[in-house]
């Protein structure tokens, strides 16, 4: 499945030769050929095809991967290292009470259609996300916005109901879309370095560089995301050269083909995907922190991680991954100690253990994890009954109806510790101190204060053993060795492509 842009390649080769020739003449020294091919098209393999092109219409994580930072930009950008930086904002000012943000937009930014970026576009973009009909998962975080005003073309004034120190972070999710664009579920009009060239559902999505881009030109001549439903088929495509990069390896068994192979580069980054066993903290015996802690101590997480991911990934002691600002290593809080587990269970009133049903989603890796937990907990006298359910059942039975004792799930979002501050969340963790800390951490004046409060909350949640956090998925990106410049952390499924270089 190789898309051949032969003409472009031929031209670039000629151009490279010409450049080499002229530089040889000019410098009189060895020819300086470019290290990379600026017109190369990068083929990227992914398992996450977007459902549609509108991130407020349930397009899924695939649209973040394909479009965030590539086709659409936001006022701020969440970089691959986890920092929030201004993007379409040139400068901004926050009032002393923290309620008014004044953003000045960068000048001379144009949309792909040719229209200039104005404050009106920003206003309509924010309203698109907060609208009644919006299915955006970030809608709630923007509820704090009272109003958006546009006194002139380059100024946007956002007034808040209460201080929200995460506002720039939350705004990094809001695509700035041309207000003249009507239906963006099948087309696009953004300010990013690439335009959508073509999309064939079930097959591939092609982006090409935008001539009128305000910022740095991309380092490649375009990108084609090729979508697979089967991880092995994706690996085969990389092996045969049909794709140059795979955005995230899902089956660790396949890694061995690539790891000691000089033709490929394997990068391990830090993902934000946390595998956990969620207790229903409302029901017995999981309403008792001692029982939860006992269970945490009964499970050898290192062994589990090793069995599934080998040398990759990491064990976590809380819901917070290393790329969140309030990360702290809490793996010692309830480290593996089956003796202590048995003691704690006896103290809590369960010397002979007990039994519970573990609702397990039917897709990888949950069934395997469930069996592992069943074995480990049997050693301390707890009987685990595994009940396999589909993803849809999980949403209705567990997420909405809260009808479960314990369940397995993977949570992919960045900075999602806030889930523990919501007593109505499916796991029903209700600690008033944590609720207070999380709610108030929004209203503080600086990132440092927010980080301090959330780190505190993080500790309490870990000590309460609110859930059993098993491990953090590794973020493994594999590429052919002549391709560089791609993001390795892929935070929030973003995959910025403009820096990707392919050697000549």
């Amino acid at each position: 499945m190789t898309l051949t842009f032969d003409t472009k390649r031929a031209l670039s080769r000629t151009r490279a030769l010409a450049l080499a020739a002229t530089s040889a003449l000019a410098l009189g020294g060895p020819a300086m050929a470019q290290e990379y091919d600026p017109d190369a098209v990068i083929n990227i393999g992914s398992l996450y095809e977007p459902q549609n092109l509108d991130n407020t219409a349930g397009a899924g994580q695939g649209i973040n991967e394909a479009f965030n930072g590539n086709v659409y930009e936001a006022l701020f950008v969440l970089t691959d290292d986890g920092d929030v930086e201004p993007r379409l904002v040139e400068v901004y000012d926050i009032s002393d009470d923290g309620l008014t943000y004044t953003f000045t937009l960068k000048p001379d930014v144009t949309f792909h259609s040719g229209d200039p970026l104005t404050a009106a576009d920003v206003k309509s973009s924010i309203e698109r996300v907060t609208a009644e009909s919006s299915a955006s998962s970030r809608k709630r975080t923007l509820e704090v916005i009272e109003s958006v005003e546009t006194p002139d073309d380059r100024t946007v004034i956002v007034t808040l109901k209460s201080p929200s120190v995460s506002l720039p972070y939350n705004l990094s999710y809001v695509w700035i879309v041309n207000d003249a664009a009507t239906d963006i579920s099948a087309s696009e009009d953004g300010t990013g370095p690439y335009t959508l060239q073509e999309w064939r559902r079930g097959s591939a999505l092609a982006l090409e560089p935008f001539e009128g881009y305000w910022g740095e030109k991309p380092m490649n001549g375009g990108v084609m995301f090729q979508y697979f439903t089967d991880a092995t088929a994706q690996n085969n495509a990389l092996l045969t050269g049909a794709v140059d990069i795979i955005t995230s390896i899902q089956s660790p068994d396949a890694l061995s083909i690539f790891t000691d192979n000089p033709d490929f580069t394997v990068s391990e980054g830090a993902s934000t995907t946390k595998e956990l066993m969620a207790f229903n903290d409302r029901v017995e015996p999981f309403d008792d922190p001692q029982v939860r802690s006992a269970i945490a101590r009964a499970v050898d997480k290192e062994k589990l991680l090793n069995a599934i991911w080998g040398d990759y990934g990491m064990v976590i002691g809380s819901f917070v991954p290393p790329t969140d600002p309030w990360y702290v290593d809490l793996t010692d809080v309830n480290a593996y100690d089956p003796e202590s587990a048995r003691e704690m269970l006896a103290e809590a009133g369960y010397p002979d253990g007990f039994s519970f049903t573990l609702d397990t989603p039917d897709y990888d890796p949950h069934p395997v994890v469930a069996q592992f937990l069943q074995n480990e907990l049997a050693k301390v006298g707890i009987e685990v009954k595994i009940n396999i359910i589909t993803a849809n059942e999980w949403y209705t039975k567990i997420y909405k109806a809260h009808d479960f004792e314990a369940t397995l799930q993977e949570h992919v979002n960045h900075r999602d510790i806030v889930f523990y501050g919501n007593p109505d969340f499916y796991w029903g963790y209700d600690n008033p101190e944590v609720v207070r800390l999380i709610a108030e951490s929004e209203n503080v004046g600086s990132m440092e204060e927010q980080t301090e409060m959330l780190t505190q909350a993080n500790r309490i949640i870990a000590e309460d053993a609110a859930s059993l956090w098993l491990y953090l998925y590794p973020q493994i990106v594999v590429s052919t060795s002549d391709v560089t410049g791609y993001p390795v952390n892929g935070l929030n499924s973003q995959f910025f492509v403009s820096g990707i270089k392919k050697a000549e």
Partner: protein
Amino acid sequence: MLRYLLRRLVILLLSLLIAAVVLFVLLRLLPGDPAAALVGVGATPEQIEAARAQIGSDQPLGAQFVTYLGDLARFDLGQSFVSRASVLEEISRRLSVTLPLTLAAFILALVIAVPLGVLAAVKADRWIGLVLSVVSQIGIAVPVFWLGILLVYQFSLTLRWLPSGGFPLRGYAQPLQAIESMVLPVLTIAIIMSASLMRYVRASMLEVLNSDFLRTARALGESHNGALVRHGLRNAAVPVVSVLGIELSTTFLGAVVVEQVFSLPGMGSMLLLGIQQRDYPNIQGVLLVSTLLVLLTGFLADILQRMLDPRLREASR
């Protein structure tokens, strides 16, 4: 013949109508609310109500059915809940992959199965007949996805002759790549299909070989092979045609396994995805279109049989 054709056409349309009714009833009997599927997880009751009004499921069943039939008559299969794209457009795109895949595999299977099946019957008492019989048994036992993976391993990963999967972005506008990506999938389906077809051809042929009319033809002076070709094949073909019709019609959606192995955007994958995502319009659309295909295939098989066997023509008069 023409009257028969018209009669069969009317039956086909009636069958399609009944299928549409059955589909309508079945989808509404299933547990789960399409409106809830449309708005997704975390929707408020008001949003679900609004969605119900949007898709019309708050209407009485009778009114819903009338709207449904009206839409079908205008070839309006609705919009996908998930992609918001036109279901008919998506199905046509998918059919442009599924139909060539299935038909090419079918023709190749015939090319393999008919000569080999005839040979297996004619030489049934020799070793070659036995070998062919065993080979076809193995072919039936082999799972289609396993064969697909094997072919990928050999021709794609090892020899690098063909791509390991996928379909070009611009489809047939990139003809070389499109054909390249179809070779292995077509081969996979054809090999498996030919194994079972071979057995039917062989069985049918064996019956013909032992028949009276063939002996009569020989007695009247025809050579063994001449009689076989002039009389035998045509007679053997009649029962085989019914089987062919069934095999072909099950492959339209049955190719989903091969589509998954080779990452082809076909109709089977569309149905699979629709079911996983609770995308009711897509599911309904694909089932309707594939029912139509099955009915058409049966219709064509019927016509072909009548053309081959004059006795059938008289029998129904």
